């Protein structure tokens, strides 16, 4: 039991680190200020040097590396200051789906541009009435000659307004049971008939969009999987959704963040860190974060051995999301009467914990609510039975939907 690399891993790490240390500083020369453009510039640098999408086959723009090498590179990349983001959905979810379902020609056309960062993709799955029940989607696709015509609405789409392409699941037949009438496509986000509206969150930010489709045409050649088999394709996509174990590192909503705040505040004229109730609470969070950190280490070891980590990864988000909300709330309480202020003068980290508290409910819902995460653990990890399903054998258009 050790934290050290094998010789081979150490060599790879060395090589990655050397390249990163040489190249990351070049980002200073990139003139663009837009975060997306900066991320694209860095992605292109990696791509050109063979450090993009490490596990992909070389012919699609990758390096053919192992899971463990990919994870080592990510770790090393985390140590240098470079712009990230914008590619998670395209590279992490769309690309694996394309690899499994697209034609060879399409793969050659789209995957390298995904790897290089030239194209950004988004995901069009969720719908307003769907929520946790993804397969309840109603966006219609109707075959018309060589095309399909799409009408409906998607929601919670990150990056819709700057994406080049999207992956999308639609209902092609509402008269068969729910999971049997779905068909899956990829499409050009600049197609006519697409309207994108940002959603304002309670935090005031707008990280997501609603996307409206009015007679949008998609060529049948962009269908992935067979007609009516969109559910299986969606599962491929979602299996690749990064069930990241948020380690709760040195961020604001962590033991360290809370400890730092507590050490600057007083309770009854003594540092709050001397208060036993505060210490008890801090210790609790420390243990949770430590538990997640070493669960991640165990997962990495499994990867290193060549095993595929299972759905037990879903504990990360479940534990972190609730903990984040608790930490934010607790820290605001520590500030006492001025706790609701967003102004920096009202105390250390002015406004940061407060804004984080406004953002934290999203963490417990986005990417699978606490309840869905617990269902996943109960069913897929512990093997407990599904709840009774009343919607499985019924034609989709006869399933009760209530008022909305």
């Amino acid at each position: 039991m050790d934290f050290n690399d094998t010789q081979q891993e150490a060599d790879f790490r060395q090589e990655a680190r050397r390249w990163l240390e040489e190249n990351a500083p070049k980002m200073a020369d990139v003139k663009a200020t837009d975060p997306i453009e900066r991320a694209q510039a860095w992605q292109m640098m990696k791509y050109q040097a063979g450090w993009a999408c490490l596990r992909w086959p070389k012919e699609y723009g990758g390096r053919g590396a192992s899971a463990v090498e990919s994870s080592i590179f990510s770790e090393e990349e985390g140590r240098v200051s470079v712009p990230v983001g914008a590619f998670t959905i395209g590279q992490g979810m769309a690309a694996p789906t394309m690899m499994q379902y697209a034609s060879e020609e399409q793969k050659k056309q789209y995957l390298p541009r995904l790897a290089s960062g030239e194209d950004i993709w988004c995901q069009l799955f969720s719908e307003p009435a769907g929520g946790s029940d993804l397969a309840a989607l109603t966006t219609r696709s109707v075959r018309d000659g060589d095309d399909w015509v799409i009408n409906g609405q998607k929601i919670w789409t990150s990056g819709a307004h700057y994406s080049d392409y999207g992956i999308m699941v639609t209902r092609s037949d509402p008269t068969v049971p729910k999971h049997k009438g779905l068909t899956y496509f990829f499409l050009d986000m600049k197609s006519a008939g697409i309207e994108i509206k940002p959603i304002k969150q309670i935090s005031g930010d707008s990280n997501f969009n609603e996307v409206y489709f009015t007679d949008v045409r998609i060529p049948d050649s962009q269908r992935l999987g067979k007609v009516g088999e969109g559910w299986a394709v969606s599962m491929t996509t979602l299996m690749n959704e990064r069930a990241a174990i948020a380690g709760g590192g040195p961020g604001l909503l962590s033991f360290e963040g809370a400890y730092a705040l507590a050490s600057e505040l007083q309770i009854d004229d003594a540092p709050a860190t001397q208060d036993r109730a505060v210490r008890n609470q801090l210790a609790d969070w420390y243990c949770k974060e430590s538990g997640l950190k070493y669960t991640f280490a165990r997962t990495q070891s499994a990867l290193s051995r060549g095993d595929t980590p299972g759905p037990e990864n879903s504990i990360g988000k479940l534990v972190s999301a609730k903990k984040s909300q608790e930490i934010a709330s607790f820290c605001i309480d520590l500030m006492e009467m001025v706790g609701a202020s967003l102004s920096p003068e009202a105390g250390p980290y002015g406004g940061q914990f407060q804004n984080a508290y406004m953002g934290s409910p999203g963490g417990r819902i986005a990417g699978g609510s606490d309840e869905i995460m617990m269902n996943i653990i109960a069913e897929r990890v512990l093997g407990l039975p599904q709840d009774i399903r009343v919607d499985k054998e019924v034609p989709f258009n006869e399933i009760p939907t209530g008022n909305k």
Partner: protein
Amino acid sequence: MNFEFSSEQNLLRDQAKSFLADKSPLRVARQVLEGESSHDAELWRSIAAMGWTATTIPEKYHGLGLGQLELCVIAEELGRALSPVPFSSSVYMATEALLLGGSEAQKEALLGKLAQGEAIGCMALAEQAGSLSPNSIQSTVSTGKLTGTKLMVADGDLADFAVVLAKSGDDCSLYLVDLNGDGVERETVATMDPSRSHARISFTAAEADLLGTAGDGFQLLAGVLDHAAVLYAFEQVAGAEACLDMAKEYALQRYAFGRPIASYQALKHRMAQMYVACVLARSNCYYGAWALSTRAAELPVAAATARVSATQAFKMCAEENIQIHGGMGFTWEFDCHLYYRRHKLLAVNIGSESFWKDRLITRIEAQKAAA
């Protein structure tokens, strides 16, 4: 045994409910939240016209001379409606501070105006993050002039006068300060709940008039906070119940997997727990109301109990209301966040749950020592 509000008080509640349904639906709170104004001035005038601001002020000072129970009823309905008015600052606290500690002259000068809603009072207490203690107070009064800076003064930007905690030498006292007078600078600050306005106030040799006995500032403040704690608790419990109602309505009409999400045990049990928290908090509020209305010796314990319980209930209900709403719950468009913001504001601005828990035990210990 009659541990409930009287039929007259329930009539007042019905009036308040329908008045606020008309004048202060949630969109009124939202307008202030999203806009530039510090409060809804028209609503405030209507509230004053209803006589609510005069509730507990004795008739000799042109008030209605009603009891504390009537004020509790009003607090509850204002809490449910999230009404964007300076009622808590002016009525629960500034008025109470005057009633508890004011000289005859001070009462004469201010209570009548407070009763009419013509004057708005507020409390200026904290100067830094962390718990309020004599050591945390830097503001000083010398030869009747106050100098110092107060943070997060609720309604401080619209109030006419403030009750200010400040030092004279080592003594902490409360002072009345005219906020429209010289040496007062106020700045509205951004907060988690912009539907209730807060200010930073700097005093530079501002006229300060001692309230109560010199050196008794923390003791007088304790009385004011106990009073406020019960009324805040009513606002909080009503907010909590409003969240539970919203969650229930949504869960009944929202379907997933062919059935209302309200039929899933995880959500049913969550809402059952929210209900339990609301019932416990409401019962403790009644205890606080009884203690307040009879000025019972148990008031310090009862006020802390009601406050802790109501803070817990509102927190659970405001957080879980969003969770039960799922994605919709964290959109700006839905009203869940109005209660979520208000819960956190109310949870801290007269001291946190943890502060009141410690105070509760201290008071129980005092009772034990006295027994």
